[in-house]
Protein backbone atom coordinates (compact mmCIF):
# COMPACT_ATOMS: atom_id res chain seq x y z
CA UNK A 1 0.00 0.00 0.00
CA UNK A 2 0.94 3.63 -0.13
CA UNK A 3 3.23 3.96 2.81
CA UNK A 4 5.45 6.96 2.33
CA UNK A 5 8.60 7.69 4.25
CA UNK A 6 8.94 10.99 6.15
CA UNK A 7 11.46 11.98 3.50
CA UNK A 8 8.79 11.44 0.81
CA UNK A 9 6.28 13.56 2.72
CA UNK A 10 8.81 16.38 3.00
CA UNK A 11 9.40 16.19 -0.73
CA UNK A 12 5.64 16.39 -1.36
CA UNK A 13 5.45 19.46 0.86
CA UNK A 14 8.31 21.19 -0.94
CA UNK A 15 6.82 20.30 -4.32
CA UNK A 16 3.38 21.70 -3.49
CA UNK A 17 4.92 24.86 -2.07
CA UNK A 18 7.03 25.26 -5.21
CA UNK A 19 4.04 24.71 -7.54
CA UNK A 20 1.82 27.11 -5.63
CA UNK A 21 4.37 29.93 -5.42
CA UNK A 22 5.42 29.48 -9.04
CA UNK A 23 1.80 29.69 -10.22
CA UNK A 24 1.01 32.77 -8.17
CA UNK A 25 4.18 34.59 -9.19
CA UNK A 26 3.71 33.68 -12.84
CA UNK A 27 0.09 34.88 -12.94
CA UNK A 28 1.37 38.19 -11.61
CA UNK A 29 4.24 38.47 -14.11
CA UNK A 30 2.60 36.67 -17.03
CA UNK A 31 -0.60 38.71 -17.16
CA UNK A 32 0.99 42.04 -18.10
CA UNK A 33 3.35 40.32 -20.55
CA UNK A 34 0.43 38.50 -22.21
CA UNK A 35 -1.64 41.70 -22.28
CA UNK A 36 1.18 43.52 -24.02
CA UNK A 37 1.83 40.67 -26.46
CA UNK A 38 -1.88 40.44 -27.32
CA UNK A 39 -2.19 44.18 -27.89
CA UNK A 40 -0.57 44.22 -31.31
CA UNK A 41 2.13 43.03 -33.65
CA UNK A 42 5.62 44.46 -33.83
CA UNK A 43 9.19 43.24 -34.12
CA UNK A 44 9.81 43.88 -30.43
CA UNK A 45 6.79 41.75 -29.56
CA UNK A 46 8.11 38.92 -31.72
CA UNK A 47 11.43 39.08 -29.88
CA UNK A 48 9.72 38.91 -26.49
CA UNK A 49 7.47 36.12 -27.70
CA UNK A 50 10.47 34.10 -28.81
CA UNK A 51 12.20 34.66 -25.45
CA UNK A 52 9.09 33.58 -23.58
CA UNK A 53 8.85 30.41 -25.68
CA UNK A 54 12.55 29.46 -25.28
CA UNK A 55 11.99 27.16 -22.27
CA UNK A 56 9.69 25.06 -24.47
CA UNK A 57 12.53 24.01 -26.74
CA UNK A 58 15.68 24.25 -24.62
CA UNK A 59 16.83 21.25 -22.60
CA UNK A 60 16.08 22.11 -18.96
CA UNK A 61 19.71 21.45 -18.19
CA UNK A 62 20.80 24.41 -20.33
CA UNK A 63 18.52 26.74 -18.43
CA UNK A 64 19.54 25.19 -15.13
CA UNK A 65 23.22 25.46 -15.98
CA UNK A 66 23.10 29.18 -16.68
CA UNK A 67 20.86 29.82 -13.70
CA UNK A 68 23.34 27.97 -11.51
CA UNK A 69 26.12 30.20 -12.80
CA UNK A 70 24.05 33.37 -12.35
CA UNK A 71 22.57 32.59 -8.96
CA UNK A 72 25.64 30.90 -7.48
CA UNK A 73 28.31 32.60 -5.33
CA UNK A 74 30.42 33.54 -8.38
CA UNK A 75 27.44 34.63 -10.44
CA UNK A 76 26.11 38.08 -11.18
CA UNK A 77 23.02 37.76 -8.95
CA UNK A 78 24.43 35.42 -6.31
CA UNK A 79 27.66 37.40 -6.04
CA UNK A 80 25.83 40.70 -5.63
CA UNK A 81 23.61 39.18 -2.96
CA UNK A 82 26.66 37.95 -1.07
CA UNK A 83 28.30 41.37 -1.23
CA UNK A 84 25.15 42.82 0.28
CA UNK A 85 25.40 40.34 3.13
CA UNK A 86 22.83 37.82 1.94
CA UNK A 87 23.31 34.22 0.85
CA UNK A 88 23.65 33.27 -2.78
CA UNK A 89 20.69 31.37 -4.29
CA UNK A 90 22.19 28.16 -5.61
CA UNK A 91 20.90 25.05 -3.80
CA UNK A 92 18.11 27.04 -2.11
CA UNK A 93 14.31 27.00 -2.36
CA UNK A 94 14.40 30.58 -3.71
CA UNK A 95 16.80 29.39 -6.39
CA UNK A 96 14.58 26.59 -7.64
CA UNK A 97 11.58 28.92 -7.41
CA UNK A 98 13.29 31.39 -9.78
CA UNK A 99 14.18 28.49 -12.07
CA UNK A 100 10.58 27.25 -12.07
CA UNK A 101 9.20 30.68 -12.82
CA UNK A 102 11.41 31.05 -15.88
CA UNK A 103 10.93 27.46 -16.99
CA UNK A 104 7.10 27.59 -16.80
CA UNK A 105 6.71 31.11 -18.19
CA UNK A 106 5.36 30.02 -21.61
CA UNK A 107 2.73 27.86 -19.93
CA UNK A 108 1.26 30.97 -18.30
CA UNK A 109 1.81 33.54 -21.03
CA UNK A 110 0.64 31.60 -24.07
CA UNK A 111 -2.86 30.60 -22.87
CA UNK A 112 -3.41 34.09 -21.46
CA UNK A 113 -2.27 35.76 -24.66
CA UNK A 114 -4.59 33.50 -26.62
CA UNK A 115 -7.52 34.34 -24.33
CA UNK A 116 -6.88 38.10 -24.51
CA UNK A 117 -6.67 38.00 -28.28
CA UNK A 118 -9.87 36.03 -28.48
CA UNK A 119 -11.73 38.53 -26.31
CA UNK A 120 -10.76 41.18 -28.86
CA UNK A 121 -10.42 44.93 -28.62
CA UNK A 122 -14.04 45.82 -29.28
CA UNK A 123 -15.35 45.14 -25.74
CA UNK A 124 -12.54 47.30 -24.38
CA UNK A 125 -13.39 50.16 -26.75
CA UNK A 126 -17.04 49.89 -25.76
CA UNK A 127 -16.14 49.94 -22.07
CA UNK A 128 -13.88 52.97 -22.53
CA UNK A 129 -16.62 54.86 -24.35
CA UNK A 130 -18.87 54.10 -21.39
CA UNK A 131 -16.42 55.72 -19.01
CA UNK A 132 -14.32 52.80 -17.77
CA UNK A 133 -10.62 53.60 -17.20
CA UNK A 134 -7.76 51.11 -17.79
CA UNK A 135 -7.93 49.35 -14.38
CA UNK A 136 -11.71 49.29 -14.45
CA UNK A 137 -11.58 47.77 -17.94
CA UNK A 138 -9.12 45.10 -16.80
CA UNK A 139 -11.29 43.95 -13.91
CA UNK A 140 -14.73 44.38 -15.47
CA UNK A 141 -13.98 43.25 -19.04
CA UNK A 142 -10.61 41.53 -19.59
CA UNK A 143 -10.64 39.36 -16.49
CA UNK A 144 -14.15 37.92 -16.91
CA UNK A 145 -13.79 37.48 -20.68
CA UNK A 146 -10.44 35.69 -20.28
CA UNK A 147 -11.54 33.66 -17.26
CA UNK A 148 -11.06 30.27 -18.86
CA UNK A 149 -7.65 31.41 -20.12
CA UNK A 150 -6.62 32.14 -16.53
CA UNK A 151 -7.85 28.72 -15.35
CA UNK A 152 -5.95 26.94 -18.09
CA UNK A 153 -2.80 29.04 -17.54
CA UNK A 154 -2.83 28.39 -13.79
CA UNK A 155 -3.42 24.66 -14.24
CA UNK A 156 -0.78 24.15 -16.89
CA UNK A 157 1.73 26.13 -14.88
CA UNK A 158 1.00 24.19 -11.72
CA UNK A 159 1.09 20.83 -13.48
CA UNK A 160 4.22 21.67 -15.45
CA UNK A 161 6.06 22.74 -12.31
CA UNK A 162 4.96 19.50 -10.69
CA UNK A 163 6.89 17.57 -13.31
CA UNK A 164 10.00 19.71 -13.34
CA UNK A 165 13.27 17.88 -12.95
CA UNK A 166 16.27 19.03 -14.93
CA UNK A 167 16.29 22.66 -13.87
CA UNK A 168 15.83 21.77 -10.23
CA UNK A 169 18.56 19.18 -10.26
CA UNK A 170 20.95 21.71 -11.78
CA UNK A 171 20.21 24.65 -9.48
CA UNK A 172 18.89 22.94 -6.42
CA UNK A 173 20.72 19.72 -6.09
CA UNK A 174 18.72 17.56 -3.77
CA UNK A 175 18.59 18.97 -0.29
CA UNK A 176 15.74 17.49 1.78
CA UNK A 177 13.24 20.08 2.96
CA UNK A 178 14.77 22.73 0.72
CA UNK A 179 15.19 21.59 -2.87
CA UNK A 180 14.29 17.92 -2.70
CA UNK A 181 11.06 17.71 -4.76
CA UNK A 182 9.03 14.70 -5.90
CA UNK A 183 10.74 14.25 -9.24
CA UNK A 184 14.24 14.34 -7.77
CA UNK A 185 13.19 12.04 -4.93
CA UNK A 186 11.96 9.49 -7.47
CA UNK A 187 15.31 9.78 -9.23
CA UNK A 188 17.12 9.21 -5.94
CA UNK A 189 14.95 6.15 -5.15
CA UNK A 190 15.63 4.69 -8.56
CA UNK A 191 19.35 5.36 -8.27
CA UNK A 192 19.33 3.50 -4.96
CA UNK A 193 17.46 0.59 -6.65
CA UNK A 194 14.54 1.26 -4.32
CA UNK A 195 12.03 0.62 -7.07
CA UNK A 196 9.03 0.14 -4.80
CA UNK A 197 9.44 3.61 -3.33
CA UNK A 198 9.98 5.07 -6.80
CA UNK A 199 6.78 3.35 -7.98
CA UNK A 200 4.73 4.73 -5.13
CA UNK A 201 5.74 8.32 -5.79
CA UNK A 202 5.54 7.98 -9.56
CA UNK A 203 2.02 6.59 -9.43
CA UNK A 204 1.06 9.37 -7.02
CA UNK A 205 2.41 11.95 -9.44
CA UNK A 206 0.63 10.42 -12.43
CA UNK A 207 -2.64 10.31 -10.49
CA UNK A 208 -2.31 13.89 -9.25
CA UNK A 209 -1.38 15.30 -12.65
CA UNK A 210 -4.23 13.45 -14.35
CA UNK A 211 -6.74 14.54 -11.71
CA UNK A 212 -5.80 18.20 -11.99
CA UNK A 213 -5.96 18.23 -15.79
CA UNK A 214 -9.19 16.20 -15.91
CA UNK A 215 -11.02 18.45 -13.48
CA UNK A 216 -9.98 21.57 -15.37
CA UNK A 217 -10.88 20.30 -18.81
CA UNK A 218 -14.17 18.98 -17.46
CA UNK A 219 -15.08 22.32 -15.91
CA UNK A 220 -13.93 24.21 -18.98
CA UNK A 221 -15.82 22.04 -21.42
CA UNK A 222 -19.04 22.10 -19.48
CA UNK A 223 -19.21 25.86 -19.34
CA UNK A 224 -20.47 26.92 -22.73
CA UNK A 225 -18.61 30.08 -23.68
CA UNK A 226 -19.63 33.00 -21.51
CA UNK A 227 -23.35 32.49 -21.06
CA UNK A 228 -25.03 34.23 -18.19
CA UNK A 229 -28.59 34.17 -16.98
Amino acid at each position, binding site marked *: MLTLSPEDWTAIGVTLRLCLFTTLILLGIGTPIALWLAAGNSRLRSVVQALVALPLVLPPTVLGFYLLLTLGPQGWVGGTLQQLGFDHLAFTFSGILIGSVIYSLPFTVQPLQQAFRQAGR*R*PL*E*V*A*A*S*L*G*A*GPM*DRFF*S*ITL*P*LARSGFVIAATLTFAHTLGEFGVILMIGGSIPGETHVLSTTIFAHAEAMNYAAAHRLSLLLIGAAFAVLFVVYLANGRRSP*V*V*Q*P
Partner: protein
Amino acid sequence: MTLKVSARLQHPGFALDIDTALPTQGVTAVFGRSGCGKTSLLRIIAGIERSADAQVRFGDDVWQSGRKFVPLERRRIGLVFQEASLLPHLGVRDNLLYGYQRTPQHLRRLEPDKAIAQLGLEPLLQRNIDQLSGGERQRIALGRALLSSPQLLLLDEPLSALDAPSKRDILPYIEQLAGNFDVPVVYVSHAAGEIERLADHVAFMRDGKIDAVETLEQALARPDSPLFNDEGPATVLHGELRSTDSTGLACFQSGSLTLRLPATGGPAPLARLRIRARDVSLALDPPTRISILNHLPMRIQTIRPPCDGRVVVEGRLPDGQLLLSEISGWSCQELGLTPGTLIYALIKAVSLLD
Protein backbone atom coordinates in the same frame (compact mmCIF):
# COMPACT_ATOMS: atom_id res chain seq x y z
CA MET B 1 -20.59 74.99 -31.58
CA THR B 2 -18.73 72.59 -33.84
CA LEU B 3 -16.64 69.47 -33.80
CA LYS B 4 -13.30 70.43 -35.32
CA VAL B 5 -11.12 67.64 -36.64
CA SER B 6 -7.86 67.84 -38.47
CA ALA B 7 -5.91 64.67 -38.97
CA ARG B 8 -3.58 62.91 -41.33
CA LEU B 9 -3.12 59.17 -41.45
CA GLN B 10 -0.97 57.13 -43.77
CA HIS B 11 -1.59 53.42 -44.10
CA PRO B 12 -0.43 51.26 -47.00
CA GLY B 13 -2.92 51.93 -49.81
CA PHE B 14 -4.90 54.43 -47.81
CA ALA B 15 -4.39 58.03 -46.79
CA LEU B 16 -6.62 60.18 -44.64
CA ASP B 17 -6.34 63.94 -44.84
CA ILE B 18 -9.03 65.79 -42.96
CA ASP B 19 -9.45 69.35 -41.83
CA THR B 20 -13.07 70.06 -41.12
CA ALA B 21 -15.65 71.41 -38.73
CA LEU B 22 -18.72 69.26 -38.32
CA PRO B 23 -21.95 70.83 -37.02
CA THR B 24 -23.13 69.57 -33.64
CA GLN B 25 -26.79 70.34 -34.13
CA GLY B 26 -28.97 67.32 -34.70
CA VAL B 27 -27.71 64.51 -36.89
CA THR B 28 -24.62 65.01 -39.03
CA ALA B 29 -24.16 62.21 -41.51
CA VAL B 30 -20.78 61.23 -42.89
CA PHE B 31 -21.48 59.76 -46.29
CA GLY B 32 -19.10 57.90 -48.56
CA ARG B 33 -18.31 54.55 -50.09
CA SER B 34 -16.88 51.70 -48.06
CA GLY B 35 -13.19 52.22 -47.49
CA CYS B 36 -13.23 56.00 -47.97
CA GLY B 37 -12.11 56.57 -44.38
CA LYS B 38 -15.42 57.23 -42.61
CA THR B 39 -14.69 54.80 -39.83
CA SER B 40 -11.12 56.07 -39.41
CA LEU B 41 -12.51 59.58 -39.00
CA LEU B 42 -14.89 58.31 -36.33
CA ARG B 43 -12.09 56.48 -34.54
CA ILE B 44 -9.95 59.60 -34.52
CA ILE B 45 -12.83 61.62 -33.06
CA ALA B 46 -13.24 58.94 -30.39
CA GLY B 47 -9.50 58.75 -29.72
CA ILE B 48 -9.30 55.04 -30.49
CA GLU B 49 -7.09 55.57 -33.52
CA ARG B 50 -4.02 57.57 -32.52
CA SER B 51 -2.73 59.94 -35.11
CA ALA B 52 0.16 61.90 -33.69
CA ASP B 53 -0.54 65.31 -35.20
CA ALA B 54 -4.32 65.16 -35.09
CA GLN B 55 -6.37 67.96 -33.57
CA VAL B 56 -9.82 67.28 -32.18
CA ARG B 57 -11.94 69.92 -30.49
CA PHE B 58 -15.52 69.51 -29.39
CA GLY B 59 -16.87 73.00 -28.74
CA ASP B 60 -14.53 74.45 -26.13
CA ASP B 61 -13.17 71.06 -25.09
CA VAL B 62 -9.81 70.17 -26.56
CA TRP B 63 -9.73 66.40 -26.95
CA GLN B 64 -6.47 66.17 -28.81
CA SER B 65 -3.89 68.77 -29.65
CA GLY B 66 -0.12 68.45 -29.63
CA ARG B 67 0.80 66.53 -26.50
CA LYS B 68 -2.64 66.78 -25.02
CA PHE B 69 -4.69 63.64 -25.46
CA VAL B 70 -7.93 63.00 -23.59
CA PRO B 71 -8.57 59.24 -23.48
CA LEU B 72 -11.91 57.92 -24.74
CA GLU B 73 -13.20 57.22 -21.23
CA ARG B 74 -13.00 60.91 -20.40
CA ARG B 75 -14.43 62.28 -23.66
CA ARG B 76 -17.97 61.19 -22.78
CA ILE B 77 -18.76 59.86 -26.23
CA GLY B 78 -21.42 57.26 -26.91
CA LEU B 79 -20.34 54.68 -29.50
CA VAL B 80 -22.52 52.31 -31.46
CA PHE B 81 -20.73 50.06 -33.91
CA GLN B 82 -21.77 48.28 -37.05
CA GLU B 83 -22.00 44.86 -35.50
CA ALA B 84 -23.53 44.09 -32.16
CA SER B 85 -21.04 45.02 -29.49
CA LEU B 86 -22.83 43.99 -26.33
CA LEU B 87 -20.48 42.90 -23.57
CA PRO B 88 -20.81 39.11 -23.89
CA HIS B 89 -20.30 38.30 -20.21
CA LEU B 90 -23.07 40.61 -18.99
CA GLY B 91 -26.84 40.33 -19.19
CA VAL B 92 -29.12 42.85 -20.88
CA ARG B 93 -29.64 44.96 -17.77
CA ASP B 94 -25.96 44.99 -16.81
CA ASN B 95 -25.05 45.99 -20.34
CA LEU B 96 -27.51 48.87 -20.18
CA LEU B 97 -26.22 50.03 -16.82
CA TYR B 98 -22.49 49.61 -17.49
CA GLY B 99 -22.05 53.21 -18.53
CA TYR B 100 -24.74 54.64 -16.26
CA GLN B 101 -22.97 53.26 -13.19
CA ARG B 102 -19.74 54.90 -14.31
CA THR B 103 -21.31 58.29 -14.95
CA PRO B 104 -20.94 60.72 -12.03
CA GLN B 105 -24.32 61.56 -10.48
CA HIS B 106 -24.28 65.23 -11.48
CA LEU B 107 -23.65 64.39 -15.15
CA ARG B 108 -26.50 61.91 -15.46
CA ARG B 109 -29.24 63.28 -17.65
CA LEU B 110 -31.28 60.14 -18.19
CA GLU B 111 -32.75 57.60 -15.82
CA PRO B 112 -32.63 53.91 -16.75
CA ASP B 113 -36.42 53.50 -16.49
CA LYS B 114 -36.98 56.34 -18.91
CA ALA B 115 -34.46 55.05 -21.44
CA ILE B 116 -35.85 51.53 -21.17
CA ALA B 117 -39.37 52.83 -21.78
CA GLN B 118 -38.45 55.14 -24.65
CA LEU B 119 -36.43 52.53 -26.48
CA GLY B 120 -39.00 49.80 -25.81
CA LEU B 121 -36.46 47.62 -24.02
CA GLU B 122 -38.71 46.37 -21.22
CA PRO B 123 -39.50 43.00 -22.90
CA LEU B 124 -35.81 42.36 -23.53
CA LEU B 125 -34.59 42.74 -19.96
CA GLN B 126 -35.15 39.12 -18.99
CA ARG B 127 -33.79 37.70 -22.24
CA ASN B 128 -30.46 36.06 -22.73
CA ILE B 129 -28.04 38.06 -24.85
CA ASP B 130 -27.58 35.13 -27.23
CA GLN B 131 -31.28 35.08 -28.02
CA LEU B 132 -31.57 38.68 -29.19
CA SER B 133 -32.00 39.67 -32.81
CA GLY B 134 -29.56 42.05 -34.47
CA GLY B 135 -32.02 44.92 -34.22
CA GLU B 136 -32.65 44.27 -30.53
CA ARG B 137 -28.94 44.20 -29.81
CA GLN B 138 -28.46 47.53 -31.57
CA ARG B 139 -31.33 49.04 -29.60
CA ILE B 140 -29.69 47.92 -26.37
CA ALA B 141 -26.34 49.27 -27.53
CA LEU B 142 -28.05 52.56 -28.27
CA GLY B 143 -29.75 52.65 -24.87
CA ARG B 144 -26.49 51.75 -23.16
CA ALA B 145 -24.69 54.60 -24.91
CA LEU B 146 -27.46 57.07 -24.05
CA LEU B 147 -27.47 56.05 -20.40
CA SER B 148 -23.87 57.18 -20.08
CA SER B 149 -25.23 60.70 -20.82
CA PRO B 150 -22.76 61.35 -23.63
CA GLN B 151 -22.01 64.80 -25.03
CA LEU B 152 -21.76 63.29 -28.49
CA LEU B 153 -23.04 60.11 -30.07
CA LEU B 154 -20.99 58.39 -32.79
CA LEU B 155 -22.87 55.81 -34.82
CA ASP B 156 -20.80 53.73 -37.22
CA GLU B 157 -23.17 52.20 -39.79
CA PRO B 158 -25.42 50.92 -37.03
CA LEU B 159 -27.96 49.53 -39.50
CA SER B 160 -25.75 48.00 -42.16
CA ALA B 161 -25.69 44.53 -40.62
CA LEU B 162 -29.46 44.43 -40.13
CA ASP B 163 -32.24 43.06 -42.34
CA ALA B 164 -35.01 45.36 -43.53
CA PRO B 165 -37.53 44.63 -40.73
CA SER B 166 -34.87 45.21 -38.07
CA LYS B 167 -33.93 48.48 -39.73
CA ARG B 168 -37.54 49.63 -39.66
CA ASP B 169 -37.65 48.56 -36.05
CA ILE B 170 -34.73 50.71 -34.94
CA LEU B 171 -34.85 53.75 -37.25
CA PRO B 172 -37.57 55.62 -35.35
CA TYR B 173 -35.44 55.41 -32.21
CA ILE B 174 -32.38 56.84 -33.94
CA GLU B 175 -34.60 59.52 -35.40
CA GLN B 176 -35.64 60.76 -31.98
CA LEU B 177 -32.10 60.82 -30.57
CA ALA B 178 -31.21 64.40 -31.34
CA GLY B 179 -34.67 65.66 -30.37
CA ASN B 180 -35.68 63.59 -27.35
CA PHE B 181 -32.30 63.04 -25.80
CA ASP B 182 -30.70 66.27 -26.90
CA VAL B 183 -27.45 64.68 -28.07
CA PRO B 184 -25.63 65.67 -31.24
CA VAL B 185 -25.12 62.65 -33.46
CA VAL B 186 -22.43 61.86 -36.01
CA TYR B 187 -23.85 59.14 -38.22
CA VAL B 188 -21.58 57.26 -40.60
CA SER B 189 -23.28 55.52 -43.49
CA HIS B 190 -23.00 54.58 -47.14
CA ALA B 191 -26.78 54.27 -47.57
CA ALA B 192 -28.34 57.37 -49.13
CA GLY B 193 -31.81 56.37 -47.89
CA GLU B 194 -30.73 56.39 -44.23
CA ILE B 195 -29.15 59.79 -44.64
CA GLU B 196 -32.14 61.31 -46.38
CA ARG B 197 -34.29 60.09 -43.56
CA LEU B 198 -32.11 61.00 -40.60
CA ALA B 199 -29.61 63.69 -41.39
CA ASP B 200 -29.74 67.42 -40.83
CA HIS B 201 -26.26 67.90 -42.25
CA VAL B 202 -24.18 65.74 -44.55
CA ALA B 203 -20.40 65.53 -44.83
CA PHE B 204 -19.39 63.93 -48.11
CA MET B 205 -16.26 61.85 -47.92
CA ARG B 206 -14.16 60.45 -50.74
CA ASP B 207 -10.69 58.87 -50.80
CA GLY B 208 -9.84 59.93 -47.27
CA LYS B 209 -10.96 63.54 -47.73
CA ILE B 210 -14.10 65.46 -46.91
CA ASP B 211 -15.39 67.13 -50.06
CA ALA B 212 -18.16 69.22 -48.56
CA VAL B 213 -20.27 69.70 -45.45
CA GLU B 214 -23.78 70.79 -46.37
CA THR B 215 -27.27 70.87 -44.98
CA LEU B 216 -29.44 68.05 -46.25
CA GLU B 217 -31.42 70.58 -48.32
CA GLN B 218 -28.25 71.86 -49.99
CA ALA B 219 -27.06 68.31 -50.56
CA LEU B 220 -30.35 67.40 -52.24
CA ALA B 221 -30.51 70.58 -54.31
CA ARG B 222 -27.41 69.99 -56.38
CA PRO B 223 -27.76 67.65 -59.36
CA ASP B 224 -24.41 65.94 -58.89
CA SER B 225 -25.02 65.10 -55.25
CA PRO B 226 -23.38 61.77 -54.36
CA LEU B 227 -26.64 60.90 -52.60
CA PHE B 228 -28.16 60.44 -56.05
CA ASN B 229 -25.58 57.92 -57.27
CA ASP B 230 -27.86 54.92 -56.88
CA GLU B 231 -31.34 56.04 -57.84
CA GLY B 232 -30.89 59.35 -59.61
CA PRO B 233 -32.04 62.74 -58.33
CA ALA B 234 -34.80 62.85 -55.75
CA THR B 235 -36.71 65.28 -53.59
CA VAL B 236 -37.19 64.80 -49.88
CA LEU B 237 -40.24 66.47 -48.35
CA HIS B 238 -40.52 66.94 -44.61
CA GLY B 239 -43.97 66.74 -43.09
CA GLU B 240 -46.46 64.95 -40.93
CA LEU B 241 -47.97 61.58 -41.66
CA ARG B 242 -51.67 61.52 -40.71
CA SER B 243 -53.63 58.40 -40.05
CA THR B 244 -55.26 56.32 -42.70
CA ASP B 245 -58.67 57.51 -43.93
CA SER B 246 -61.68 55.52 -45.13
CA THR B 247 -60.11 55.09 -48.56
CA GLY B 248 -57.22 53.18 -47.05
CA LEU B 249 -54.79 55.95 -47.92
CA ALA B 250 -52.64 57.91 -45.55
CA CYS B 251 -52.21 61.66 -45.79
CA PHE B 252 -48.83 63.31 -45.82
CA GLN B 253 -49.03 66.97 -44.89
CA SER B 254 -46.07 69.14 -45.76
CA GLY B 255 -46.80 72.81 -45.27
CA SER B 256 -49.86 73.52 -47.37
CA LEU B 257 -49.30 70.44 -49.55
CA THR B 258 -51.17 67.22 -49.10
CA LEU B 259 -50.02 63.99 -50.67
CA ARG B 260 -51.80 60.67 -50.47
CA LEU B 261 -49.98 57.42 -50.23
CA PRO B 262 -50.70 53.79 -49.43
CA ALA B 263 -50.72 53.43 -45.68
CA THR B 264 -47.75 51.81 -44.01
CA GLY B 265 -47.62 51.79 -40.27
CA GLY B 266 -49.18 54.41 -38.08
CA PRO B 267 -49.16 58.20 -38.06
CA ALA B 268 -45.87 59.98 -37.46
CA PRO B 269 -45.43 63.64 -36.52
CA LEU B 270 -42.04 63.90 -38.22
CA ALA B 271 -41.91 61.99 -41.46
CA ARG B 272 -39.88 62.35 -44.61
CA LEU B 273 -41.16 61.47 -48.02
CA ARG B 274 -38.85 60.68 -50.90
CA ILE B 275 -39.89 61.36 -54.47
CA ARG B 276 -37.54 60.20 -57.18
CA ALA B 277 -37.26 62.70 -60.02
CA ARG B 278 -37.85 59.97 -62.58
CA ASP B 279 -41.20 59.22 -60.90
CA VAL B 280 -42.44 62.77 -61.60
CA SER B 281 -43.99 63.47 -65.01
CA LEU B 282 -44.99 66.93 -66.18
CA ALA B 283 -48.20 68.21 -67.80
CA LEU B 284 -49.07 71.67 -69.08
CA ASP B 285 -52.77 71.35 -68.29
CA PRO B 286 -54.32 70.48 -64.95
CA PRO B 287 -54.78 66.75 -65.14
CA THR B 288 -58.31 65.42 -64.81
CA ARG B 289 -59.69 61.92 -64.97
CA ILE B 290 -56.39 60.28 -64.18
CA SER B 291 -55.48 57.52 -61.79
CA ILE B 292 -52.35 59.15 -60.45
CA LEU B 293 -53.04 60.12 -56.85
CA ASN B 294 -50.82 63.12 -56.46
CA HIS B 295 -50.48 66.07 -58.78
CA LEU B 296 -49.23 69.45 -57.76
CA PRO B 297 -48.91 72.73 -59.60
CA MET B 298 -45.45 74.21 -59.69
CA ARG B 299 -43.47 76.89 -61.48
CA ILE B 300 -40.31 75.88 -63.31
CA GLN B 301 -37.27 77.44 -61.77
CA THR B 302 -34.38 75.81 -63.62
CA ILE B 303 -33.95 73.28 -66.36
CA ARG B 304 -30.65 71.54 -65.96
CA PRO B 305 -28.52 70.75 -69.00
CA PRO B 306 -29.42 67.42 -70.61
CA CYS B 307 -27.47 64.33 -69.72
CA ASP B 308 -27.91 61.09 -71.69
CA GLY B 309 -30.98 62.59 -73.34
CA ARG B 310 -32.68 63.26 -70.03
CA VAL B 311 -33.21 66.58 -68.33
CA VAL B 312 -33.93 67.39 -64.71
CA VAL B 313 -36.52 70.12 -64.22
CA GLU B 314 -36.55 71.96 -60.90
CA GLY B 315 -39.91 73.40 -59.95
CA ARG B 316 -41.09 75.53 -57.02
CA LEU B 317 -44.19 74.18 -55.32
CA PRO B 318 -46.79 76.73 -54.09
CA ASP B 319 -45.33 76.61 -50.58
CA GLY B 320 -41.81 77.30 -51.83
CA GLN B 321 -40.39 73.77 -51.64
CA LEU B 322 -38.37 72.43 -54.53
CA LEU B 323 -39.51 69.38 -56.54
CA LEU B 324 -37.34 67.63 -59.11
CA SER B 325 -38.65 65.95 -62.23
CA GLU B 326 -36.61 63.97 -64.69
CA ILE B 327 -38.04 63.78 -68.22
CA SER B 328 -36.62 63.18 -71.67
CA GLY B 329 -35.03 66.13 -73.40
CA TRP B 330 -37.42 65.51 -76.29
CA SER B 331 -40.53 65.92 -74.08
CA CYS B 332 -39.05 69.05 -72.63
CA GLN B 333 -38.66 70.49 -76.11
CA GLU B 334 -42.10 69.33 -77.31
CA LEU B 335 -43.81 70.93 -74.29
CA GLY B 336 -41.77 74.08 -74.76
CA LEU B 337 -40.76 74.20 -71.13
CA THR B 338 -38.80 77.23 -70.01
CA PRO B 339 -38.09 78.69 -66.60
CA GLY B 340 -41.19 80.46 -65.34
CA THR B 341 -43.69 78.08 -66.98
CA LEU B 342 -46.54 76.96 -64.72
CA ILE B 343 -46.86 73.20 -64.98
CA TYR B 344 -48.40 70.27 -63.19
CA ALA B 345 -46.23 67.63 -61.61
CA LEU B 346 -47.71 64.15 -61.74
CA ILE B 347 -46.18 62.09 -59.01
CA LYS B 348 -46.33 58.42 -59.91
CA ALA B 349 -44.76 57.05 -56.79
CA VAL B 350 -43.67 58.27 -53.43
CA SER B 351 -41.92 56.36 -50.73
CA LEU B 352 -41.87 57.00 -47.08
CA LEU B 353 -38.28 56.92 -45.92
CA ASP B 354 -37.82 53.98 -43.62
